[in-house]
C-alpha cells in the first residue's frame, strides 16, 4: 500500500469541461474509488464516473407505502374500533373519507423518507472529512472543480497516480492528508 497515511490525491480544475474530461479518463484508467467535487450538480460528471445508481427512490417508496398504511390504519382504527360515532346512521368504515388523510400521510412519510434517507445515504451529518484538509478545497463550493482518487483504490500508487493526474492538465495536484 503506497497510499498509507493519506486519503488520496486530488486534482483541481478551473473549467467544468476539463473536470468532465478528466473524470472520463480517470474512469477509463480503471480507478473506481474516485469522487468529484463540484459547486453545483453536474449530470456529465455522474455519467463519467458511472454514479447514477441511487437508492433514494426505494427509500421514498417505502416511506410512502408506510405512510399510506399508517394513515389508513389510524383513520380506520379510530372511526371503526376505538371511537365509533353514529352520525345519521352513516357507516363507520366511511372509506372515501379516509382517502384524504391517508393521502396526506403518504406524502408526509415519503417526503420525510426522501430527506432523511438522502442525508443518511450521504452519511450526514459528517463533522470531519479529509478533503477539507486541502486549503484550496474551500473553493470547491465557489468556482473550482476537484477530482480525488482515493488511496483505498487497488490501482492507487502515490507516484504513478500523481503523474497520471498531472497529465490531465489540472491547475494543481495535491495530496489529501488523512
Amino acid at each position, binding site marked *: 500500500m503506497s497510499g498509507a497515511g493519506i486519503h488520496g490525491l486530488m486534482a483541481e480544475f478551473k*473549467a467544468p*469541461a476539463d473536470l*468532465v474530461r478528466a473524470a472520463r479518463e480517470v474512469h477509463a484508467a480503471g480507478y473506481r474509488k474516485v*469522487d*468529484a*467535487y*463540484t*459547486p*453545483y*450538480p*453536474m449530470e*456529465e*460528471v*455522474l455519467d463519467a*464516473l458511472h*454514479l*447514477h*445508481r*441511487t*437508492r433514494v*427512490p426505494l427509500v*421514498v417508496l417505502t416511506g*410512502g407505502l408506510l405512510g399510506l398504511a399508517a*394513515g389508513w390504519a*389510524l383513520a380506520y382504527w*379510530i*372511526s371503526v374500533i376505538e*371511537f365509533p*360515532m353514529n*352520525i345519521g346512521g*352513516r357507516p363507520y368504515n366511511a372509506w372515501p*373519507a379516509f382517502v*384524504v*388523510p391517508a*393521502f*396526506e400521510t403518504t*406524502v*408526509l412519510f*415519503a*417526503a*420525510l423518507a*426522501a*430527506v432523511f*434517507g*438522502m442525508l443518511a*445515504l*450521504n*452519511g*450526514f*451529518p*459528517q*463533522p*470531519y472529512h479529509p478533503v*477539507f484538509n486541502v486549503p484550496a*478545497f*474551500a473553493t*470547491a*463550493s*465557489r*468556482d473550482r472543480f476537484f477530482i480525488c482518487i482515493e488511496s483505498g483504490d487497488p490501482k492507487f500508487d502515490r507516484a504513478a497516480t500523481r503523474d497520471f493526474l498531472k497529465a490531465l492538465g489540472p491547475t494543481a495536484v495535491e495530496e489529501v492528508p488523512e
Partner: protein
Amino acid sequence: MASTARVEHPPAEPPLVGPGHTFASVGDKISSIVLTTRTPLGWFLGFGVAFSMFVMLLATISYLVLKGIGIWGNNIPVAWGFDIINFVWWIGIGHAGTLISAILLLLRQRWRTSINRFAEAMTLFAVACAALFPIFHMGRPWVGAYWLLPYPNTMRVWPNFRSPLIWDVFAVSTYATVSALFWFVGLIPDLATLRDRAQSRAARVVYGMLAMGWRGSARHWSNYETAYLLLAALSTPLVLSVHSVVSFDFAAAQVPGWHATIFPPYFVAGAIYAGFAMVLTLAIPLRKLYGLEDFITMRHIENMAKVMLATSLVVAYGYLTEAFMAWYSGSPYERFMMWNRMTGPLSWSYWMLILCNVVVINTLWVKRLRTNVPYLFLVSLVVSVGMWLERFVIIVTSLHRDFLPSSWGTYRGTPFDYSMFLGTIGLFLTLFFLFIRFLPAISIFEMRTILPGAKLDEEKA
C-alpha cells in the same frame, strides 16, 4: 446558407442572469448580503416596523387567551369571521412557493431558479401565520388540542375522520412539514458556500453545522438531485390537495354560497394567484434594496405577472360559475344568496372584489403596464386586497343571511380582529426580514447551473 437560416429562428429569449456573471460572482454577490457587516438602513427600518406589528400580535394573543374569543367579532350567525378569512388568505399566499419550487421545477421552467428560495420561505412564514388563526379560534388551544390531533387523551375522545376539518389539519400540517423540508434541503449546498466564505468564527460554526458537512461530492449530488426531484414530485399533488381540502371545509357544508362543486379548482387557482401577487410584492422591493436586478430580471417579473394574469382568469371564471349556478340551480336560497351578495348590505365587498380581481388585473394584458415595475407592485397589492375580500365575501355574506330570516344577523370585525390580522402581517414580515439577513435569499448553486459557463461545449473540451 447559415445566415439565411438564422432569419427563421424565433428571437432569442432574454438571458436569466445579467451579463458578465461567473460561478464565483454569483455566489459572492448572493452570500455577501448575508455575510456583510454593513446591513442597509432600509433593512433596519423595515424590520423595525414589522417587529412592532409582531409585538402587537403578541399583545393581542395574550389578551385573547386572557379574555376568550369573545373579543373577536364573530358570533352566531357569522360564527366564522376574520379568523377563517385570514387563515384561508395566508394559506393561499403560501401556495406560490411550492408551485414555483415544485411544479415549475418539474416543468423545467428554469426562470424559477432565482425566485424559488424566497418564495419557499414566504410559504413557510405564510403557513405559520395561517396556523395561528384556527389554533387560537379554539380559545385555549392547549385544552382543545384533541379536536385537531388524534392523540390518546384521558377522555378517550378522538377526531371525526368523516369531517373535512380533520382533513384540513392533516393537509396543512403535512404541507408545513414538507415545505420546510424542501426549503432546508435546497439550502444545504448554499449553507456550505456560506461556511466556506464566512470570515467570522461564529458564522463558520453555525453555517458549518447547518451544512452538515456538505462538500459537493458527486456521489452526494446524485442522491441529492434524486431526493430533490422526488420531493418536487410529492409536493405537486400535495399543493393541489391543500387548498382543495381547505375548500372542502366550505363545500361540504350546506350553507348557500359554500355548497359548490367548483370550489376546489377555484380555490387552488385563487391560491396561486394570491401567492404570485405576494411573491411580486416581496421581490420588487428586495431586488431594489439589494441591487439584485441581474438575478431577478425583467423576464422574471414579467413571467410572474403573466402567471398572475392567467390564474386571475380562472378565478374570474369561478365567480361567473358561482353566479350562473345560483341562477341555474333553481334553488331560491342559492338565488337569494347571490342577489344578496350583489345588492345586499355587504354588496360593497362583492363589487370591490370584482374591481380588484377582475378589472384591475386585466390591465396587465398591456405589455407597457406589465413591465412597469411600480405599477406592477401596486397591482400585486390590489390583488392581495382582492383575495382577502374574496374570502370575506364567501364567508361573511353566505353566513349572515342563511335559510331562516329569523336567524339573520350582521358582522363587523372588532379592533382585536384587525390587530390580530395586522399582527400576523408583522410576524410574516419579521420572519422574512430575518430570512433575507441570515440566509441566502436566492439559490446560489441553482443559479450556477443556469450560467452560460455551465453549458459544456463538448467540441471545445
